[in-house]
């Protein structure tokens, strides 16, 4: 998928969007957006008024231009939505291409033979066999075998991944390609319900439902629209009372102009674009939100549960120091440790080999160079690994196991080293030759770069970070301190995670977490925002409400930021839209009532004093306000799609900043804006 972000206005997006803008004029579609629907009805009314004027031979220039600009207002709003949808659609199309017309080897369980069938005919529970070079026909779970799979169709990542039966890497996605080996898959999704289908649907916004905050905002906007309708409709009787000349000045065209300028067309026109763009921004970060609701909830999250391994620390521990026992040379310890780790393919083992080489220049020997060597692999019983070489028995392992191995007691300095390393958050590995303890290897969890700073910014925003780890209290505390998280849960079992989420939620917090294993599924479902890793099991992906295609747990942080940005954009544009009205009043009211109580018909009436902008004529003033109102929608489309600038600071300072820009800016900007348009309108002699 396209990870590169397209520039907001590119021609291949704009042209179709323009076409769609016209299709969206259909009132049945617009009905869902009350503000723009009212605008359309208004444009329709002025059109009728225009036809009537032309039929009676009246001056049609002014009503014609107003009518055109009102239709433009509706089209611009449609265009904003079409642009947002278009960006999603482009991504969805590329996805759709990847899964056209595949076939499957369906396994008949009774006979054990396979039959070639169309992928669309597969149902939940069917078994299929996929061999190297074939497309996986549907979402499923590997029940036999292991294979390397190219998942670039959904992740954009070309490096193959391993999928195997059992464990946490058993889920496969339809549309990905098997590169090697042969696997048997149980289909877990019916056609049309697969992960890819849902993804396409979401990106296209086909089944987009309004999110809770969007609904609440729509209600506010509708209420404002209704009350402005009342304002404008009641204006006519008030004008009739005031005098026939004022009443005559309030034509349908003028009244509709006032209405459209007052109702919040700016936010009304951009509202759905903002929502779609929010999901789109998630997609660009390679996160798939299962609903807009989830994106919005991400902005509300105030507790982040972060797994230590993979999220806070780089999955593997690294050896950073050799602590020799008294009377043992450090080099001697390093040599023994390296020997014991030669056949140890775990990251920890490899890091010991590397450290010995870097620090003491002890070359990593190849196994075949030591013909007499007997490698002792790690087993759950001994919990040690090592090597038997020329009569030496070198072992390394956790302190407890090695202590038992050497007869139940360590020399005091070794015990102390073990304690010290543990308290620093490290893992001590004790190395013994026979029953002589040589020393301790200090394995350290490496905290990912930049995290403490990030967590600090979260704290400023009022978000608490909690680290979850299976480590003991001491180790957990040390890493928590180093990473700068606010809290930690040590020796956590999956059910503890669940209990913690419940506890936080009961206290009114909204919790986000990441997970990949099947045992994470209940917690993912319970959390308000559950981000499942794409490498995880099907159960985990089903339970969460987002999937991270990159399987990078740190992404949770960006998810929260995007959620906040989405809400901020809505709030900022609403404020801007309402603040704009003040200036529009000062443009339109003096123009409408210019003739009220005038001493003579050719003299301006007293209310002309309200024409603070000094706009040319009554008609140019109204036209300029309508043009400004339409153009501002276009001008703000990039902001709506990109979102307002996000900063990780406290709510109060975000508010102060946004109020200054969008509140005060919204109040002041239209004054010069309308004035400039009015100058142009008059210079061109449009009215």
């Amino acid at each position, binding site marked *: 998928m396209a990870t590169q972000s397209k520039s907001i206005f590119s021609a291949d997006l704009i042209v179709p969007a323009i076409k769609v803008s016209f299709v969206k004029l259909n009132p049945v579609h617009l009905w869902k957006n009350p503000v723009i629907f009212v605008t359309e009805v208004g444009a329709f009314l002025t059109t009728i008024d225009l036809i009537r004027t032309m039929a009676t031979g009246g001056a049609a220039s002014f009503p014609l231009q107003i009518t055109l600009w009102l239709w433009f207002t509706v089209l611009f709003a449609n265009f904003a939505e079409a642009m947002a949808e278009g960006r999603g659609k482009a991504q969805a199309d590329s996805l759709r291409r990847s899964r056209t017309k595949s076939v499957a080897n369906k396994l008949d369980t009774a006979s054990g033979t396979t039959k070639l069938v169309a992928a669309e005919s597969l149902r939940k529970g069917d078994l299929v066999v996929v061999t190297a070079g074939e497309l996986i026909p549907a979402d499923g779970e590997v029940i036999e075998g292991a294979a390397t799979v190219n998942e670039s169709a959904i992740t954009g990542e070309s490096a193959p991944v391993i999928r195997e039966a059992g464990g946490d890497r058993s889920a496969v996605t339809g549309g990905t390609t098997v590169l090697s080996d042969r696997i048997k898959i149980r289909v877990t999704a019916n056609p049309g319900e697969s992960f890819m289908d849902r993804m396409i649907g979401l990106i296209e916004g086909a089944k987009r439902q309004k999110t*809770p*905050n969007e*609904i*609440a*905002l729509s*209600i*506010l906007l509708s*209420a404002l629209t*209704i009350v402005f309708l*009342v*304002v404008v409709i*009641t*204006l006519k*009787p*008030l*004008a009739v*009372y*005031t005098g026939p000349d*004022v009443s005559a000045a309030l034509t349908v065209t003028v009244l509709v102009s006032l209405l459209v300028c007052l109702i919040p067309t700016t936010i009304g026109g951009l509202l759905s674009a903002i929502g779609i763009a929010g999901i789109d921004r998630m997609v660009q970060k390679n996160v798939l939100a299962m609903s807009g609701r989830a994106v*919005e909830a991400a*902005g*509300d999250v*105030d507790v982040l549960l972060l797994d230590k391994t993979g999220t806070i620390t780089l999955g593997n521990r690294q050896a950073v120091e050799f602590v020799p026992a008294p009377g043992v040379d450090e080099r001697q310890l390093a040599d023994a440790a390296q020997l014991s780790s030669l056949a140890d393919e775990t990251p920890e083992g490899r890091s010991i080999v590397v450290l010995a080489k870097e620090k003491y220049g002890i070359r990593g020997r190849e196994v075949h160079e030591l013909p007499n060597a007997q490698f002792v692999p790690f087993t759950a019983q001994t919990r040690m690994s090592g090597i038997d070489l020329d009569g030496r028995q070198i072992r390394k392992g956790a302190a407890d196991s090695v202590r038992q191995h050497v007869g139940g007691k360590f020399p005091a300095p070794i015990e102390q080293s073990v304690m010290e390393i543990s308290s620093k958050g490290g893992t001590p590995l004790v190395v013994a030759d026979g029953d002589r303890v040589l020393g301790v290897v200090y394995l350290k969890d490496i905290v990912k770069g930049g995290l403490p700073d990030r967590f600090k910014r979260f*704290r*400023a*925003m*009022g*978000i608490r970070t909690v680290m979850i780890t299976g480590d003991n209290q001491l180790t957990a505390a040390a890493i928590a301190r180093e990473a700068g998280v606010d809290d930690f849960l040590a020796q956590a079992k999956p059910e503890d995670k669940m209990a913690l989420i419940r506890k936080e939620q009961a*206290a*009114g917090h909204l919790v986000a977490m990441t997970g990949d294993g099947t045992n994470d599924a209940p917690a993912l479902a319970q959390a308000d925002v559950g981000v499942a890793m794409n490498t995880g099991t099907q159960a985990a992906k089903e339970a969460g409400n987002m999937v991270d295609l990159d399987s990078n747990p740190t992404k949770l942080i960006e998810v929260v930021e995007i959620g*906040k940005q*989405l*809400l*901020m954009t*809505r*709030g*900022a544009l609403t*404020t801007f839209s*309402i603040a704009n*009205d*003040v200036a529009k*009043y000062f443009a339109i*009211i003096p123009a*409408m*009532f210019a003739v*009220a*109580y005038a001493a003579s018909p050719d003299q301006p009436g*007293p*209310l002309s004093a309200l024409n603070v902008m000094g706009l040319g004529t009554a008609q140019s003033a109204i036209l300029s306000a309508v043009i400004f109102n339409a153009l501002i929608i276009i001008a703000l489309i990039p902001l709506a799609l990109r979102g307002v600038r*996000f900063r990780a600071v*406290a*709510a*109060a300072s*975000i*508010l*102060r900043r*946004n*109020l200054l820009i*969008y*509140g005060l800016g919204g109040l002041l900007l239209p004054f010069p804006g309308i004035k400039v348009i009015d100058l142009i309108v008059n210079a061109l002699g449009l009215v």
Partner: protein
Amino acid sequence: MTPNGWFQLALYLGVLLLLARPLGVYMAAVYEGVPSRWRRPGEVVERWMYRLCGVDPAEQMTWTRYAYGVLMFSVVSFLAVYLIQRCQALLPLNPQQLAAVTADSSFNTAISFMTNTNWQGYGGEVTMSYLSQMLALTVQNFVSAAVGMAVLVALIRGFRQTGTTGLGNFWVDLTRGTLYILLPLSFILALVLVSQGVVQTFSAYQTVPLMEAATTADGKTITEQTLPLGPAASQIAIKQLGTNGGGFYNVNSAHPFENPTPLSNFLQVLSILLIAAGLCHTFGVMVKDSRQGWALLAAMLVVFVPLTVGCALLEQQGTPQLAALGADLTASNLHPGGNMEGKETRFGIANSALWATATTAASNGSVNAMHDSFTPLGGLIPMWLMQLGEVIFGGAGSGLYGMVMFAIVTVFIAGLMVGRTPEYLGKKIEAYEMKMASIAILAPCAMVLVGTAIALMCTGGKATIFNPAVHGFSEVLYAVSSASNNNGSAVAGLGANTPFYNTLLGVAMLIGRFLTMLPVLAIAGSLSQKKHVPASAGTLPTHTPLFVVLVVAIVIIVGALNFFPALALGPIVEHLQMRA
């Protein structure tokens, strides 16, 4: 404004703020049911009343049940006031032998007093018997205010509680508010007012010889006048405290028997805002964060003080027309200068302007000067204060719950701007709350505009506009604004005691009262079931000066956007004409 005027304004605000805190704490204790030695005698009365009415004081009402109580009580109140007026000729305590009040006027007055509006289409001394004044009107002065306060308390409980549907007991809140807050305060105030010369008697009107005979336009000589009397002080005390405003006499507190001295004037205008200001602190105390209450009070003051000063300055400035007639507009030690038309010389400019803004900021509506005679912009200010939805202090209880509706809308817009689902006092503000808050805020606005439009279109509406053109327009707008926002303040010059206006304004008052009260209770019901979201750095703080400014901005923008066109055709154009 004279230094004296500034001083009086400062003194007024100082005393008001000084009293708000202890009164707020006391009212919170009353509604929380904190036992107190002082209220023990009252508790006996309370128990006795609950038993008599079959009320279980321990019952916790859901919002629908609470609303049902409010509505039933209002219906009974309406019927009682209506019937007493219709039958007053047959009832005792009617020394002047006043006839039954007409059907449409009784309808209007019954709604008016039941909704705490106290719009008066009638003239008190020539319409209402003493019994009607006391049993119908004064009783409503107490209980309609207590209903408003009860609804506010239910709303506060909605914010405070989590996971329950109970909002307290309407009957208990109603009884306690009346018994422990309104009655004692009115009793004290009435006594002080009597000491200042406000009348309190059951004797019939007195006819006395004039000191100096007067001659009417048609040459008749008048040598004696009738002095209207009656139990005025008791009604006036509660009329101010309960933000009712219905005067005992037609000219309300401009009448020397209703408001004789500067001290009585000070106490009355103080009483107008006293409970509303105190309730802000009650709010803070009851939601366990007194800063929240002060923030709302600050928002009210930020609107109130500049408008009061503005009104006083505009009145002090006078008009070119008065100057042209040779009136001395500059203040001196001998006379107040400025526009004194329709103002009492014993109150002067500053106190008339202060009263005018206080009475319209609060939904009181009593007057000590004729708003119709204010300068166009000076008169625009009281009118606009009503159009703001009676949330700047507003009615007893109703003002603050209206302000909380604005706070909810503010929190919603501002909350989105900080990137979170908005929350106020720890409760999430969602679609349902937005719907209800929108209705509560916009229903009275719509009623003002629609009502004005109807009045200006109908012959019935135009027939009794005595001032033609712009000023007549302003008068109609003022009357409908007053009724729709349950204020009750009136400008003369519009004959409102006609079947047309009695009906139109009656309906306006009902909408203004119940289309705000019911959504407020619905919000209380919805909030009470929500979880409490703990505050963090990510929460929008709602006690800061920034938030105060924001609430004020929303109140003003809503008020300005809704009424700018109408005001332009009324007071604004009148002002421009006057200055032209």
